[in-house]
């Protein structure tokens, strides 16, 4: 057997403060489809950027066709026959398909005075023909569908002589039909001897399309498995890992009325794709409702619609008894909704503000800190100090700018601020991501404390232990739909994995309905 097409050995990539890849090994056989599986932030993209020459590894070797290589730039990687299709397409939208494909390697005529468009078009047509792509070389890219654009990207790599194609989450933006077609393309390509590496965090497609799967978790590779023999459940376990199980003993809480609910909620993403597709859920006061699911299955969009960051395309959102579907975010804040956002650096904190100012984010008009529009900075500072003390934020300095805090401390501050609102409803999106173990426990206790106070809590997390341990009921999302609502204490990890993969195993322990009434 010949040398593997790609052999990454002990790749380590250190960013300031973050170890993105930790001695990762990856061996990809020629002519195979190899999937790289892992949660967001597991280091998949970093690893591929190393392979594509965008990053230089801190340690380890890149071996291509048995030869160790050092890439200083993508140009070197391209020369070595590696092509990458990024998650965000590197296409120039107002230019034509042909122009995009030949960009940087235009065939010339008249001694370089002009691009030989005829030759370029022919080359593209010939290439498309060879791999069975149906593209119009003269079409403008911005007029094409996402799936078509992706094929242009693939052609672009092939035009540059790529033998190894890296695709970063290629299905994330595709419709199911387009995914189907893409996998068809994979077959064509591997038949022609090309090698494919694709990044994914969707279990089902990995087992469908790949020959082998390497799973990354927290920057480390946790093993490579044969895609034909592995089950989705095993993959889910590998991916999410077994973390310390918290012995959270949740005292029974008297359930109140509906605190937070949606009805037939539909949310579209930027491209008009239905990211949330008809979700109905009710969270009672005094209940933690967990949402489990692999990242990118509509959780973010659901949270946006609930919190007023996005306007739903259809359906309704209720806060208590009130229909807040079209209410501005301001009103939801005033009505007692707290929100721990997923992206703390863009939304949750103003990075150049100090903690006193960040402590006001969202409460800047709260009578607690402002009287007739005037902010009482003393009270704001006391408030920030309280959060700092209670949540053990370090450095314990209300004058420190948010960007000077570590990610975990930033997160603790946000959680502290939101929970301190004494909210009626909480939407917490990955509240413990990037937080140290001790703090995780603390945040969990706070969440449960809110529950006991009769707050409706919606918890979104990709950590299975977390949602299972904290939730009274657990909803599983897949592809924009709420697949099922289960009893977190009864369900097995295996069943949960299947649900997350979009399958419905028989006899899943349903959550017993304990919610009082329907949303109005």
């Amino acid at each position, binding site marked *: 057997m010949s040398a593997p097409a790609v052999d990454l050995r002990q790749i380590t990539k250190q960013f300031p403060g973050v170890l993105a890849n930790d001695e990762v090994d990856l061996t990809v056989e020629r002519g195979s489809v190899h999937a790289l599986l892992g949660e967001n932030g597991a280091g998949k993209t970093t690893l591929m950027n190393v392979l594509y020459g965008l990053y230089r590894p801190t340690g380890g070797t890149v071996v291509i066709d048995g030869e160790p290589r050092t890439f200083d730039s993508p140009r070197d990687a391209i020369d070595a026959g590696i092509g990458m299709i990024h998650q965000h397409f590197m296409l120039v939208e107002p230019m034509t398909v042909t122009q995009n494909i030949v960009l940087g390697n235009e065939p010339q005529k008249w001694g370089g005075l002009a691009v030989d468009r005829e030759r370029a078009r022919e080359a593209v047509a010939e290439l498309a023909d060879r791999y069975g792509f149906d593209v119009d070389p003269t079409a403008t890219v911005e007029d094409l569908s996402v799936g078509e654009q992706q094929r242009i990207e693939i052609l672009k790599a092939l035009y540059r002589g790529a033998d190894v194609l890296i695709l970063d989450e290629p299905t994330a933006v595709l419709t199911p039909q387009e995914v189907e077609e893409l996998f068809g393309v994979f077959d064509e390509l591997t038949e022609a001897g090309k090698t494919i590496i694709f990044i994914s965090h969707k279990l089902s497609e990995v087992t469908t399309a790949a020959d082998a799967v390497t799973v990354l978790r927290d920057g480390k590779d946790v093993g490579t498995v044969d895609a034909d023999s592995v089950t989705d459940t095993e993959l889910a376990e590998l991916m999410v890992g077994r973390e310390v199980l918290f012995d959270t003993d949740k005292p029974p809480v008297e359930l109140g009325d509906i605190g937070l609910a949606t009805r037939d909620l539909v949310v579209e993403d930027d491209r008009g794709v239905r990211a949330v597709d008809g979700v109905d859920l009710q969270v009672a006061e005094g209940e933690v409702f967990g949402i489990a699911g692999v990242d990118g299955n509509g959780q973010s969009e659901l949270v946006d619609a609930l919190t007023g960051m996005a306007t739903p395309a259809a359906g309704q959102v209720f806060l208590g008894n009130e229909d807040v579907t079209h209410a501005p975010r301001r009103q939801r804040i005033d009505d007692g909704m707290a929100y721990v956002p997923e992206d703390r650096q863009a939304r949750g904190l103003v990075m150049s503000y100090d903690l*006193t100012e960040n402590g006001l984010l969202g409460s800047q008009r709260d009578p607690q800190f402002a009287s007739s529009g005037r902010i009482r900075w003393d009270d704001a500072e006391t408030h920030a100090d309280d959060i700092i003390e209670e949540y053990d934020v370090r450095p314990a300095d209300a004058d420190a700018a948010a960007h*000077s805090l570590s990610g975990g401390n930033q997160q603790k501050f946000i959680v502290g601020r939101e929970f301190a609102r004494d909210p009626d409803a909480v939407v917490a999106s990955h509240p413990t991501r990037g937080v140290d173990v001790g703090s995780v426990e603390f945040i969990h206790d706070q969440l449960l404390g809110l529950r006991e106070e009769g707050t409706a809590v919606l918890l979104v997390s990709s950590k299975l232990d977390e949602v299972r341990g904290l939730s009274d009921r657990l909803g599983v999302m897949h592809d924009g739909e709420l697949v099922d609502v289960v009893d977190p204490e009864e369900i097995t990890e295996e069943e949960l994995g299947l649900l997350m993969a979009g399958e419905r195993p028989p006899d899943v322990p349903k959550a017993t309905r304990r919610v009082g009434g329907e949303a109005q």
Partner: protein
Amino acid sequence: MNPDRLPGPIAGLMGRLVDASAGERLAVSVAALLTAILIGGVVTLVAGVFATCSDPILGPFCYNPLAVYRYLFLAPLSDPFVLQETLKNSALLLFTGLAVAVSFRAGLFNIGTQGQLVLGALAAALVAVRVGPAAPDGAVGGVLIAGVAMLAGAVVGGLYAAIPGALKAYADANEVITTIMLNFIASDVAFFLVSAYFQKPGSGSVETRDVPAAATFGPGLALAMAVLLVLAVTYLLWGTAFGYDLRTAGIQPDAADYAGVDAKRMMVTSMTLSGAIGGLGGAVWVLMSVGRWVNGVPALGFDGITVSVLASNNPLGVLFAGPLFGSMQAGSLSIDFQLGVPRQLVGVIRGLVILLVAMPELFRTLGVRWGMGGVR
């Protein structure tokens, strides 16, 4: 100044203003200013070679940069006239610098302060002329007229700035381009309006009638008003929820959304506020400097950009940068007058300052290279 020693609310405010990166920005501004002055000095020296004079300072050099800078910065101290001019310029630059700073703080490039000022000035002049005869005599009347005129200036300037704000918010039209265009439109339209309808009888130039003398005031009062306004706006930006919303929207729009700020409305509001301050500056220009609206309004709006940029859009910085440029502008009369160095030199230095302040990277690089960790 140790903020902790100040009374509570003020200490809080001061703390807000002097945030973590203020030191760096201050360092960049000072470095940029010094570099611009240095380059300006070299330009002066070299220009002196091409000029002809009867008494060169040394060899072929006609101009003495040191003398030039002595006049630019120190003339107000020794020459009452230059001092008077400095006060006037400073007051006006405080208004326009503040106007620009407010919009920049809100994340909007309001290059249109000039146009807002021109129309605000026109409105103020017309209102003052119109209201004049109806107002009671004496100081009361003067205050009344001036008050109404300044209000008119602020309203017109604000409304005129609301146009690009609304275009940006609701039509996604780049405010840089629209405000530049609106500058030209403002001066052309004002010229037309005055020459066609409000021309001062018997005058050969395009100008309005004189505003009532009772309504005019000196640079002292104007400066006091400007400083008060700067402090008021400082308070507005750092002491109120509105200011918090405005700053957050300017610095991190996503976080503003998160905090429940209506970003689009904030664009219109902050542009209106900025324009109102610019329009107020125009009114002060009419009432303090000329006593009527005349064609050829000085480029105070553009100077305001310089002031704001040098002050890194911090109102308290404007409080220093405004008078600095005000003094340089007044001093430019002196260098022309006393040294024979063309006063356009100040325009060159002004441009250099903006250019240099715009590239903090340069100073960071230099700071690192020279081992000055403090600049980082």
